C-alpha cells in the first residue's frame, strides 16, 4: 500500500509567482494514495528538509514527491534528507515545476494545471519505485599504464608515489618516447634529455613500478576495478634477468649499417642494439630482420662474447597476466607520412619531394640533427653532403589544417617547435638564414608568444605568411616556391635544407587497440575523452583514462598535466576497497529471457554476457542474458530492444514509465 507525501516548494517567488502553490498542494492531497501534502517557501532549506523528514516518520510515508526545481539541481539534496529519515533514497522523486513550468510559462492557470500534472506523474511513478542499493564493486588497487613516453612516465610516477602499484607497458625496447628524441624544448630551451632521463631512471628503479618494455597489450578483460590484462612480452633474444648492459655484444656485432629508428634514419645502428645510450632499461634487443644469424644461420658473435650467457636465440614471445583496477592510456602520437599516402586515406605531399631528396627532412629529423646525442653530435649539416646549410626553409602545417590532405585539425605544437628550430639553428650557424612559411602563428601558452617574437626579433628568423606549392632541386640548391600573402607576391627561395613541420597523427594501430580496450576514437583515430569539457581525462569506459597526445595533439606541459590528472583519477579510484555507483543498471528476468542475444549486440559497453542455466544434473536448460552491474552504464538501450521484454532498467522500469504516461493527461 502506497503512502505518498507531496512537498510543494515556492522557491521564494520563483515558483510561487506563476504557480498557485497552495492550490496545487490542496489538489495534490486529493490524488490517489497521497496521504500528506504540504507547501513551504524553501523546501531545500534546512527547515524545509526537516518538514520532509518529520512527515516521513509521522505519516509513515513510503514514497516522496518533491515538487520543486530540476532533479539535476536538488535530487541529491532531497534523497539525502529522505535517507536521514530512514527511507531508501530511491523512493524520492522530484517534479520539476520550476525550470519546466513556472519559469517558462506566463499564464498562471496553465502553469498551475501543468504543475499538478507533473506532480501526478511523479506520484504515479514513485509508487512503482523500488528501494535500490548503490552498487558496490571491489577494486584491485593497482594500475596499468600503457605507453612509456613522457605522459606515461609522469602518470606512472605519480601513481607509484601515491603508494599504488603500477604496471607499465611500452612497445619499444626503451621508455622515453618522442621526448627522448628531442634536442631542446620550448619555451625555455632546456635540454630534453636532461629533464627526461632522470624520470626514466626513476621509473625503472621505483619499488612500485613494474616495467615491461618491448611488450604489447595482448588482451584486456574485465571492467572498472577489475581488469585482467594479458601482456605479450616480445622476444628480445636477450635474457633481461641476466644481461647487465655491458654492451660488448653491440660492439662486436658485424651488422653495422641498419637505419636507426631513434635517429629517424639519419644514423645507423647494429643488429643487436639499444635504441640510444640513455635507454631504460639498458638491455639490448636483436633485430631479427637484420641479424646475420637469423638470415644466414651463421654468426652468433654476440653470444660468443657475452660472458653472462644472456643471449638466447631460442627465446620466444612470453605472455604475462596482470590484474589491475584502472588503466591509463598514454600511447602518444605518430607523424604524418609526407611522402606517401597512408593506408588510412591521407594524401601525401608528393610535390614537396620528401623521401626523394635527402635534404628535405621532417621536424623530428631536424631535432636529431640539432641534438648533441644525434647522428651529427649536434652539428647541423645537410644529410646529402654534410655541408653546413646556409639557408634553411621551414614549412609549417604540412598536413595540418589542410582539408584536401585529409587533416583538418591543427597539430598545435608546430608553431612553437619551428620557432625553436630557427633559434637553435641560428645559435649553431650564425651566418645562416632561416625562413618560415606559416599560415598563422599559434603561440597561445605561457611565455609562448614571447618565444616566437624572440625567434623573429633576436634570432632574425624571416616569417613568410603563405603556403609552399613545390620544392625542386636545381643543382646544389632546393628551390622552394611559395607565396608571401602579406605582400601578395610569389617567392622563390634557394635553400640548402628544407624542414617540414609535419602533422601529428595518432599511433598507426590505434583502432584495433581502442577496440581491444573498448574505448572510443574520433575520425582521425585519436582516442576520445568522455566529455570534451568536463571529462577530458576519462574515456567512455569507466576505469580507463587518457594521458598525452593519444587524445589530441599536445605539447609536453599539457601531456604532463593530463598525465598527472589521470594519475589523480587513478589514485582516487584506488583509494577505496570498493566502488560505489548509482544503481541505475539493467537486470534480466531469467524466466522469460529467450536468449536471443539482441541485447548483447546493442550494448555499447559489452556489459551483457551469456549465462547458462543448468539443472541439478548439470544439463543446460537454456542460455540467458546476464548484466554485469560493474560495467553497465544504465542507458537502457537493451530494454527497448528486448523482444520478450525480459530486461529492464532499475530506476527507469517499464512500470514506472508507463505509470507516468498513464497519468500524464486527465
Amino acid at each position, binding site marked *: 500500500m502506497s503512502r505518498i507525501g507531496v512537498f510543494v516548494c515556492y522557491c521564494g517567488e520563483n515558483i510561487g509567482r506563476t504557480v498557485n502553490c497552495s492550490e496545487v498542494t490542496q489538489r495534490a492531497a486529493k490524488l490517489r494514495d497521497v496521504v500528506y501534502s504540504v507547501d513551504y517557501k524553501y523546501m531545500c532549506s534546512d527547515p524545509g528538509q526537516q518538514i520532509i523528514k518529520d512527515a516521513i516518520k509521522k505519516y509513515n510515508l513510503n514514497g516522496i514527491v518533491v515538487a520543486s526545481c530540476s532533479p539535476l539541481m536538488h535530487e541529491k539534496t532531497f534523497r539525502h534528507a529522505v535517507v536521514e529519515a530512514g527511507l531508501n533514497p530511491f523512493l524520492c522523486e522530484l517534479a520539476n515545476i520550476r525550470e519546466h513550468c513556472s519559469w517558462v510559462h506566463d499564464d498562471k492557470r496553465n502553469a498551475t494545471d501543468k504543475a499538478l500534472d507533473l506532480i501526478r506523474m511523479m506520484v504515479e511513478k514513485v509508487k512503482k519505485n523500488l528501494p535500490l542499493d548503490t552498487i558496490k564493486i571491489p577494486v584491485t588497487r593497482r594500475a596499468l599504464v600503457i605507453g612509456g613516453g613522457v605522459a606515461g612516465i609522469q602518470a606512472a610516477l605519480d601513481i607509484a608515489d601515491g603508494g599504488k602499484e603500477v604496471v607499465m607497458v611500452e612497445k619499444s625496447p626503451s621508455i622515453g618516447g618522442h621526448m627522448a628524441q628531442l634536442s631542446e624544448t620550448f619555451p625555455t630551451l632546456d635540454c630534453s634529455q636532461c629533464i627526461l632521463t632522470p624520470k626514466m631512471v626513476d621509473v625503472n628503479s621505483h619499488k612500485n613500478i613494474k616495467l615491461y618494455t618491448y611488450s604489447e597489450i595482448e588482451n584486456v578483460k574485465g571492467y572498472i576495478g577489475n581488469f585482467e590484462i594479458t601482456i605479450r612480452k616480445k622476444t628480445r633474444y636477450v635474457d633481461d634477468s641476466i644481461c647487465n648492459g655491458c654492451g660488448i655484444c653491440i660492439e662486436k656485432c658485424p651488422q653495422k649499417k641498419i637505419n636507426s629508428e631513434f635517429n629517424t634514419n639519419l644514423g645507423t645502428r647494429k643488429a643487436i642494439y639499444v635504441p640510444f645510450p640513455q635507454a631504460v632499461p639498458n638491455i639490448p634487443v636483436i633485430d631479427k630482420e637484420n641479424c646475420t644469424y637469423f638470415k644466414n644461420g651463421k654468426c652468433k658473435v654476440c653470444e660468443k662474447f657475452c660472458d653472462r650467457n644472456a643471449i638466447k636465440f631460442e627465446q620466444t614471445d612470453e605472455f604475462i597476466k596482470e590484474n589491475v583496477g584502472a588503466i591509463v592510456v598514454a600511447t602518444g602520437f605518430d607523424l604524418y607520412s609526407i611522402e606517401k599516402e597512408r593506408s588510412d586515406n591521407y*594524401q601525401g*605531399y*608528393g*610535390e614537396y619531394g620528401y623521401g*626523394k631528396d635527402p635534404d628535405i627532412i621532417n621536424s623530428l629529423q631536424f631535432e636529431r640533427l640539432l641534438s648533441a646525442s644525434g647522428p651529427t653530435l649536434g652539428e647541423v649539416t645537410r644529410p646529402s653532403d654534410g655541408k653546413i646549410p646556409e639557408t634553411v626553409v621551414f614549412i609549417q602545417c604540412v598536413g595540418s589544417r589542410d582539408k*584536401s590532405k585529409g587533416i583538418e585539425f591543427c597539430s598545435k605544437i608546430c608553431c612553437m617547435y619551428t620557432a625553436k628550430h630557427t633559434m637553435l639553428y641560428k645559435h649553431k650557424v650564425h651566418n645562416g638564414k632561416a625562413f618560415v612559411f606559416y599560415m598563422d602563428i599559434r603561440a597561445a601558452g605561457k611565455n609562448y608568444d614571447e618565444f616566437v617574437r624572440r625567434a623573429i626579433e633576436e634570432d632574425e628568423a624571416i616569417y613568410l605568411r603563405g603556403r609552399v*606549392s*613545390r620544392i*625542386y*632541386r*636545381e643543382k646544389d640548391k632546393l*628551390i622552394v616556391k611559395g607565396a608571401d600573402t602579406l605582400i601578395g607576391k610569389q617567392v622563390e627561395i634557394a635553400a640548402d635544407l628544407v624542414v617540414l613541420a609535419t602533422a601529428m597523427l595518432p599511433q598507426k594501430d590505434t583502432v584495433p587497440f581502442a577496440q581491444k580496450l573498448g574505448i572510443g576514437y574520433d575520425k582521425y583515430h585519436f582516442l576520445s575523452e568522455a566529455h570534451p569539457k568536463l571529462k577530458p581525462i576519462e574515456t567512455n569506459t569507466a576505469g580507463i583514462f587518457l594521458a598525452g597526445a593519444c587524445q589530441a595533439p599536445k605539447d609536453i606541459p599539457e601531456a604532463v598535466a593530463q598525465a598527472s590528472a589521470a594519475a589523480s583519477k587513478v589514485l582516487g579510484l584506488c583509494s577505496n576497497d570498493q566502488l560505489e555507483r548509482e544503481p541505475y543498471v539493467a537486470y534480466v528476468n531469467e524466466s522469460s529471457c529467450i536468449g536471443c542475444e539482441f541485447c548483447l549486440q546493442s550494448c555499447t559497453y559489452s556489459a551483457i554476457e551469456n549465462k547458462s542455466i543448468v539443472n541439478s544434473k548439470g544439463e543446460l536448460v537454456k542460455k540467458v542474458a546476464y548484466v554485469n552491474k560493474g560495467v553497465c552504464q544504465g542507458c537502457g538501450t537493451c530494454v527497448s530492444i528486448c523482444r520478450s521484454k525480459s530486461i529492464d532498467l532499475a530506476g527507469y522500469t517499464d512500470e514506472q514509465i508507463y505509470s507516468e504516461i498513464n497519468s500524464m493527461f486527465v
Partner: protein
Amino acid sequence: MNYGYFPGCSLHSTAREFNISTKAVCSSLKINFTEVEDWICCGATPAHTTNHDLGLALPYSNLQLAAQQGFDTLVAPCAACYNRLKVSDFEIRKSDEKKNRIHEITEDKTEADISILHLIEFFKNDFGIEEIKSAVKNPLVGLRVASYYGCLLVRPNEIVNFDDEENPTSMDEIVSAIGADALDWSHKTECCGAAHAIPKTEIVLQLCKKLLQAAENSSADCIAVACPLCHANLDMRQNQINKTFGTKFNTPILYITQLMGLALGYGANDLSLQSHFVDPIKLLTRKNLIPQLEKMNREN
C-alpha cells in the same frame, strides 16, 4: 560501358594530330569510341569569362546530346573541354535551380546523367596501365619524357579528382608503360599562360620559358602534353621564346597519344609527327624509335 567521344574544336583544327593519334591508339588497342553527333563548342575560356550561364550551358548541351544518343560515359582528350564539361556537370548536379535554368537555356529537358572522363583518366582507370604495357610493340627505350599536366587536367581537385592536383602521376605511369623514362620534374602543373597568348603574349613567353628551362634542367628529351593550348604555347612559341630570351631550346612537344602511338607501332605519318613546329622526328630517329611501318607490315 558505352563511350562517347568528344574531340572538341581544337582537335579538328590546330590539334589535328592529337585527334589523329588518339584515333590511331584507340584502333590499335581495340577501344571503341563513338564521336557524339552534332557536338558543339564547349565554350572554352571565352564563354565562362563572359557569361556564367553560357559557360555552363554550352558544355551541358553536349552532355544532353550524348545522353540522347545513349552514351553513359563521355571521353574528352582536350584538357580544356574536359574541364568545362566536368565543371558544368558538377555545378548543375549541385543545384536544381541551376539545372532548371540551364534546361531553359538549352531548350532541352534531357537529364544528362553522364560520367565524364579525360582520355588519360580513361587509360588509367578504365582501360588499365597494364593492358597498355602488354600491347606495346616498340618500347620507347631511352626516351626521357617530362609529362606536363598544366592547369586544367587535374584542377580544381573537388571537381576533377582522378589524380593528385599538386603532384599528378597518371601520365607518367603511361609514359613508363610504353617503355620511356618518366622524369620526376619540377614544373608538372605550372601554368603555360594559356589564352594569354593572344592579349599578353609576353606572359606566355615568360611562363613557357620557365617550363622549357625546367624540362631542360631535368634533361628531358621531350615534353608530353594532353592539352592543345599547352601544346600550342610550348611548341609554336618556342622559336619566339628563343629569340626573346636568347635561349636555345629545341625540345619537341608531343601529345601523349603520339608517344603511345609510336610505342604501339605506328609510323611518323600515321601520327602526324611532321606537323609540329619543333621537329620531333630528328630526335626520334636519332634514338631509333620510329618503327619502320613497311617492315612491320611485312612481318605481320
